[in-house]
C-alpha cells in the first residue's frame, strides 16, 4: 500500500508495525504528528500526557512492564523529561522503548535550537538518525530491536526537514506481535545508590558493546564513489550532500552514537580528503577530533540556523555563513482570536507582562507589544512571581490553559506558598492551539477525542492557594480591564481565567463593525490591536475587510471616539 507520509507519521507507522503497544507525548512542533498519527490507529494505547516528564515516565514504565512503547516530543520537551531520561539508561527497558525527538534547526517554531544528538552522549543512550521519511519507517523497527537486544532506550533524532517532509512509501500494514514478560527485579529497577552504582558498571560495558555494534551495523554505511573527496554526514544533511555531490564517497551515519570509530578510520583511509557535514553543533566533528582523524568541517558560523542544500558548496569552500535579515511575513494572532482582547487591555494598562509559550506569545509583537518575557513552559507564572517581587504591583503573568496544566501549577503553588500577591491570567482557549488543537486535561477529551474526566481549572487554582479565581469572557474588554485593575491592589494572589474557545474551534462569525469616518481622530488605537482585518487607508482613515473580520469588536472597544460601531446584526454574541 502506497502512503504519502511525513517523517513523524512514517516513524509512527514503522513503530506500529513493529508491535508498538503504548505511546505518550506532549504536543510540540515538529514532533506533534507522531502521536496524532498513533492516536488514529487501532490497538495502540496512545495518550497526550500532561507534560513530557510524565509522558516519558509512563511510557518507560510500560516498556519495563513488557509492552513495546514510545515517547515523542520536540527538543525542548526532552529538557522537561531529562530527569527520567538520564536514569533510564541505568534501569534499561525490558520490552523495546524508543524516544523520538524532533529538533528545530532554524527555530521555525521554538525558543532555541539546541542539538539533541549531544543528549544521547550525555545520557549514554544510543541514537539513530534517519534522513528521510522512508528511513523513519525503516529505523523504527531497527530501534526496537536494538532496544531489546541491549536492554536500553533508543533515541531517534529527527529535524524539521525529516519530520515535516513527506515521501511516498510502500508500507506493509502488517503488525508484528511483541510482548515481554515482566518480572520483579529490585536491583534493576530500584535506583538506590548501591544498585545504581552496579548498574553504572553494567551501562559502561553495554556502551562498549554498542560501540562494536555501531561499527558493523548497516545503519552506518560507506558509499564508495570518487575517492578524491569523502563526506561524513548524518540526517537530512546526507541528502543535501547527495544532491550537491552525487559522485562523492559518503559515510552515512544512521547511528551516530555510539560513534563507529573503526568504520570512520576505514572510510578516512579510503578517501583523499574528509569533510564533515552536519547541522547545528559540531557533534561528529568533535568525535573525529577525538579519534585524531583529519577532517574539514564547517565554519562555526554555520552552527547557527538550518543548513540548506546550497549551504554544502559554501561549507566545502570554507566560507562563512552570510546572515540575512528575514523578509518573511511575521505571524500574527488570527482575526477573532480571544487573546487579542486580553492583550489590548494589558497594553492600555501599561503593565509588565510575563509571558509563556503558545500562540499568545505573538502578543509581544508590535504594535500590541503587550508581552515582555518568554523563556520556557511555565514561566508565565514563575517570571510573574520573580518580576513582581522585584518590581511590585504593575506586573501580571499570562499563560495558556494547556501550558498551565503542563508547567504552571507548580509555579502557582510556589507563589501562594511564598505569599506573592498579584494577577495571573490563564488565557483559556480550551485547546493546545499552536500545535494544531490537541486536547488536554482541562478539555475533558482524550487523544482519541473520547470523553474523560475534565480538570476544572477554577477548582485547581483555588486548591493551589489563589485567593480569588474569576472567570471572564476576554471579548468583554471593559469588564476585564476593571477586574484586572481591582485585583492589582497588592492584597491578594488572583487568577483570572479569560475563557473563550480558540478561533480554530469556534468559527462563529458576526458582522464587521461599521465605520463613522466623521468621528475618526486618526489616533490608530484600533490598529494597535494588531488585527489582520483592519488597516489604514491611503487617506489615513481606517478600513475593515469584511471577509476577514469575525465581528469580535476588540477594535470597537479600543476606539475612544465612537468612530467604530458594533454592527447590530449579530449571529451570536462573541
Amino acid at each position, binding site marked *: 500500500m502506497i502512503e504519502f507520509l511525513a517523517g513523524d507519521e512514517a516513524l509512527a507507522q514503522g513503530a506500529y508495525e513493529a508491535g508498538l503497544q503504548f505511546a505518550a507525548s506532549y504536543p510540540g*512542533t515538529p514532533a506533534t504528528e507522531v502521536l496524532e498519527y498513533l492516536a488514529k490507529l487501532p490497538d495502540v494505547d496512545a495518550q497526550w500526557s500532561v507534560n513530557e516528564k510524565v509522558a516519558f515516565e509512563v511510557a518507560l514504565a510500560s516498556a519495563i512492564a513488557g509492552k513495546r512503547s514510545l515517547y515523542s516530543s520536540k527538543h525542548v520537551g526532552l529538557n522537561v523529561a531529562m530527569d527520567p531520561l538520564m536514569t533510564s539508561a541505568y534501569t534499561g527497558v525490558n520490552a523495546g522503548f524508543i524516544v523520538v525527538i524532533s529538533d528545530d534547526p532554524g527555530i521555525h517554531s521554538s525558543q532555541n535550537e539546541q542539538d539533541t544528538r549531544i543528549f544521547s552522549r550525555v545520557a549514554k543512550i544510543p541514537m539513530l538518525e534517519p534522513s528521510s521519511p522512508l528511513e523513519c519507517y525503516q529505523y523504527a523497527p531497527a530501534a526496537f530491536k536494538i532496544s531489546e537486544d541491549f536492554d536500553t532506550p533508543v533515541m531517534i533524532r529527527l529535524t524539521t526537514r525529516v519530520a515535516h*517532509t513527506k515521501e511516498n512509501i510502500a508500507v506493509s500494514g502488517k503488525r508484528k506481535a511483541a510482548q515481554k514478560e515482566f518480572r520483579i527485579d529490585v536491583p534493576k529497577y530500584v535506583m538506590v545508590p548501591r544498585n545504581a552504582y552496579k548498574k553504572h558498571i553494567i551501562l559502561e560495558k553495554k556502551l562498549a558493546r554498542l560501540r562494536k555494534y555501531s561499527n558493523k551495523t548497516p545503519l552506518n554505511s560507506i558509499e564508495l564513489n570518487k575517492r578524491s573527496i569523502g563526506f561524513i554526514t548524518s540526517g537530512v544533511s546526507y541528502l543535501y550532500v547527495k544532491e550537491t555531490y552525487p559522485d562523492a564517497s559518503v559515510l552515512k551515519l544512521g547511528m551516530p552514537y555510539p560513534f563507529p570509530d573503526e568504520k570512520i578510520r576505514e572510510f578516512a583511509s579510503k578517501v583523499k580528503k574528509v569533510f564533515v557535514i552536519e547541522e547545528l553543533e559540531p557533534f561528529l566533528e568533535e568525535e573525529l577530533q577525538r579519534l585524531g582523524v583529519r577532517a574539514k568541517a564547517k565554519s562555526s558560523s554555520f552552527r547557527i540556523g538550518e543548513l540548506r542544500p546550497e549551504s554544502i558548496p559554501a561549507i566545502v569552500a570554507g566560507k562563512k555563513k552570510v546572515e540575512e535579515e528575514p523578509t518573511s511575513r511575521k505571524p500574527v494572532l488570527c482575526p477573532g482570536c480571544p487573546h487579542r482582547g486580553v492583550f489590548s487591555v494589558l497594553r492600555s494598562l501599561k503593565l509588565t507582562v510575563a509571558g509563556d509559550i503558545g500562540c499568545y506569545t505573538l502578543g509581544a509583537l508590535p504594535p500590541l507589544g503587550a508581552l515582555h518575557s518568554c523563556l520556557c513552559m511555565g514561566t508565565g507564572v514563575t517570571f510573574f512571581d520573580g518580576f513582581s517581587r522585584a518590581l511590585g504591583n504593575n506586573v501580571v503573568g499570562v499563560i495558556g490553559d494547556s501550558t498551565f496544566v503542563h508547567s504552571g501549577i507548580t509555579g502557582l503553588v510556589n507563589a501562594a506558598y511564598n505569599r506573592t500577591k498579584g494577577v495571573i491570567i490563564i488565557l483559556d482557549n480550551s485547546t493546545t492551539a499552536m500545535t494544531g488543537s490537541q486536547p488536554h486535561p482541562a478539555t475533558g477529551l482524550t487523544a482519541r477525542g473520547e470523553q474523560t474526566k475534565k480538570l476544572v481549572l477554577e477548582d485547581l487554582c483555588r486548591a493551589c492557594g489563589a485567593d480569588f479565581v474569576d472567570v471572564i469572557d476576554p471579548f468583554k474588554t471593559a469588564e476585564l480591564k476593571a477586574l484586572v485593575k481591582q485585583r492589582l491592589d497588592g492584597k491578594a494572589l488572583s487568577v483570572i481565567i479569560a475563557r473563550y474557545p480558540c478561533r480554530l474551534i469556534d468559527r462563529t462569525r458576526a458582522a464587521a463593525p461599521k465605520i463613522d469616518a466623521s468621528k475618526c481622530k486618526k489616533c490608530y488605537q484600533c490598529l494597535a490591536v494588531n488585527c489582520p482585518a483592519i488597516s489604514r487607508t491611503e487617506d489615513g482613515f481606517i478600513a475593515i475587510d469584511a471577509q476577514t473580520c469575525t465581528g469580535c469588536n476588540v477594535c470597537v472597544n479600543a476606539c475612544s471616539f465612537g468612530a467604530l460601531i458594533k454592527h447590530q446584526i449579530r449571529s451570536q454574541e462573541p
Partner: protein
Amino acid sequence: MKRPVPRILTTSILFCGTGGQGVLSAAEVLGWAAIYDGYHVKKSEVHGMAQRGGSVESHVRFGPRVFSPLIPAGRADYLVSFLKEEGLRMKPMLRKGGVDLTAELEQGSSHCDDKRYFNSYLLGVLSRRLSIRIESWFSAIDHVFGKKNPQANRNAFLRGRGEMK
C-alpha cells in the same frame, strides 16, 4: 544502494503564500498526482507558529529519485504564488529559465469567483507544463479534497488548464 540519478531529472515546484490560502493543500495535490504517475516525491514545509498568518511555503520535488527535500536556491523550475508579495520575495529561488506563475494570480481571480477553488485553478495552470497525466491529477484532487465538492474543484482545475471556459 541504487546509482544516483542525474539531478536534472528532478522537477522542483515552489508553492508560496500565507496561512489559510490553500498553499499546503495545493502542494499535497501535486504530491499525490506525481505519486499516481509513478514518480518518487518529496514535499517539505514548516508547521507550528509559522502558520499563524505568516509566510507559508511548500517545496515539492518529483522524479525517478529525489534527494534533498528542499529545493536548492536558484533551482526551482516553477514558482506558484498565492500572494503577489510572497511571489516577489521567493523569485530568487527560480532557476534561469524557470517559470513564475505569479502573473496568473490576477487571471485566476477573474476566472475563479469562489476563493475556495483558487488552488485547484492554479494547479490547472501548472498542470499544462508538467508531464503528469490528467487522470493522475483528478485522482489526486479527489484524494486530497475528498467529498468536498469534487466537481467544483475539477472544474476550477480545468479552467486553469484552459480546457473549460
